[in-house]
């Protein structure tokens, strides 16, 4: 078993994936930043050209404007205590999740030689079609179960946030969706890379069918984000908010990918072209986050708070349940889409005709 494991591939890919994790780490945290739970004690400091101006520890109750005097300069800062922050518990599960995800990919790349001839040997499309056929019902039931638990828990049992009252409950849809559209993009990039390098048909189909699904999930993230913003910030679209704008750009990239995919008739060339574009955009996404964050710090004069407080455990529990629910939903919807594409791709083969006759 270990003889066919290629350590060189494994170490190189682990190194590359670690580098990617570093680059992508910041926005794999929840996309809505680290606001402050009311009543916590903290310090607020602002870095200006004339050095660090800050307050010492004090307790924050409501959004307020702080005044700092420095030489003859007066710098005013607005602090908002918006949605509850997510605590270390959540960050820990997130880091474990990301690490687990990258480790599996590195091991898979280590086994790439046996995996690729396994895929080629087993007449991959038919095998995947039948295999996924068996898994889909289970994934669907599990996803539905977890989703209902998460939502009911989130809506009914989670304590209402002091400041935002109940509108914060949108977090249980918004945050998982926002994270899922990043993960969907990463999975699509990996699938496109495999499709480009080893020209494996199933990888092409996976990459092509993620695009519309990713666009749908990004749409959910955008809509729930703006609805939530409508209640807490007053305007349902806020150009200054870096999270909203970067998710919007990601949405445009998804639409671009879908557009390119449908513009080319021949399926195989379409998949390769889309793969190239996905990987080029994959490289540029960190820069989108950097530039939008800088744009935000220019106009809003961001108020960075020293120290962030934990999320109330009752609030965090449904969120974690919802994470696994959304991940399962993603696999479920993806597998359905893949099975459809497989039938279209192999419509001339005999096994598809048998299925058609049987259906």
């Amino acid at each position, binding site marked *: 078993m270990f003889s066919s494991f290629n350590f060189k591939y494994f170490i190189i890919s682990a190194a590359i994936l670690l580098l990617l994790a570093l680059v992508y780490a910041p926005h794999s945290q929840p996309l809505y930043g680290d606001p402050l739970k009311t009543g916590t004690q903290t310090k607020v400091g602002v870095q200006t050209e004339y050095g660090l101006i800050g307050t010492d520890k004090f307790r924050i109750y409501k959004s307020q404007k702080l005044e700092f005097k420095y030489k003859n300069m007066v710098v005013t800062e607005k602090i908002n205590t918006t949605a509850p922050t997510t605590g270390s518990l959540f960050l820990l599960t997130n880091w474990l999740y990301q690490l687990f995800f990258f480790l599996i990919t590195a091991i898979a790349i280590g086994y790439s030689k046996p995996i690729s001839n396994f895929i080629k040997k087993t007449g991959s499309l038919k095998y995947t079609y039948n295999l996924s056929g068996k898994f889909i019902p289970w994934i669907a039931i599990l996803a539905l179960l977890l989703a209902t638990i998460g939502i009911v828990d989130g809506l009914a049992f989670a304590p209402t946030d002091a400041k935002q009252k109940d509108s914060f409950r949108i977090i249980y849809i918004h945050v998982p969706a926002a994270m899922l559209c990043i993960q969907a993009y990463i999975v699509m990039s990996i699938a496109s890379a495999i499709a480009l390098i080893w020209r494996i048909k199933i990888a092409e189909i996976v990459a092509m069918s993620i695009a519309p699904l990713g666009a749908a999930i990004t749409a959910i993230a955008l809509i729930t984000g703006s609805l939530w913003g409508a209640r807490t910030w007053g305007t349902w679209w806020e150009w200054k908010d870096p999270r909203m704008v970067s998710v919007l750009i990601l949405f445009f990239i998804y639409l671009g990918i879908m557009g390119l995919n449908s513009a080319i008739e021949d399926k195989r060339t379409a998949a390769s072209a889309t793969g190239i574009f996905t990987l080029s955009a994959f490289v540029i996404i960190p820069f989108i986050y*950097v530039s939008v964050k800088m*744009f935000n710090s220019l106009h809003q004069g961001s108020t960075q708070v*020293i120290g962030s407080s934990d999320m109330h455990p009752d609030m965090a529990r449904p969120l974690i349940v919802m994470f696994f629910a959304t991940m399962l939903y993603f696999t479920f919807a993806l597998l359905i889409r893949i099975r459809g594409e497989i039938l279209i791709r192999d419509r001339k083969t005999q096994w598809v005709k048998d299925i058609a006759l049987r259906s």
Partner: protein
Amino acid sequence: MTPKTNKNGLTAFLAIIRRDLLLAYRYRAEVINPILYFIIIVSLYPLAISPDPKVLTKIAPGIIWVAALLASLLSLDNLFRSDYEDGTLEQMLMSPHPTGILVLAKIVAHWITTGLPLLLVAPVLAYTLHLDPKAYSVLMITLIIGTPILSFVGAIGIALTVGLRRGGMLLSILVLPLFLPILVLSSVAIQLAASPRPAIAPIIPGAWFDSVVYLTTQAPYSAAIYTLSALLILAITLAPLATAAALRISLR
């Protein structure tokens, strides 16, 4: 044993640059189009928004950069289109030299004929838009660093859509989201240089790029320029490879 080759990648690289510059020189009228387009777009804003200098100074960096972006987007089309139609692109793909070098040559030649002229016209237009005198130097820096990135990243987009009949609209949908970081970084840099207010930045570098933003404390716009040049280096190294692969695919 193959005879000593007296022609390595460099000669092909220079030959293609010379050829494209010769073509551009022979059809000088076409070189002026991006510049005219640039001027017209810039002159739209004062008429559309307001001629009042106070308003214009505030939005001048954005106007110039949006116009530069649209001008280079428009001029991307003649990067591979003519070669695709008369078969020279096929010959380039079939040449033993690595396609990346040949594509690099074409992109550099394209930037010289379209990106560079924008640089000459930009300060004059910035003056008409009452741009803050302190910001001219940063405007030129961002244009010098930014416009090549537009050509490199745009080359990937046009290489993907060159084979399609109605690829024009798809090209802008594909490429504009990728142009956004360049647009935002440059206009942020210019506005930071122009505006007297000290740049306020997060003080806890949570991730590597927070520390990049943190750098704004040295000179207000340096973080944006650093990120822009990082993007340029990335574009120069990776874009030719992606464009070569994209050309191979769209010529399949």
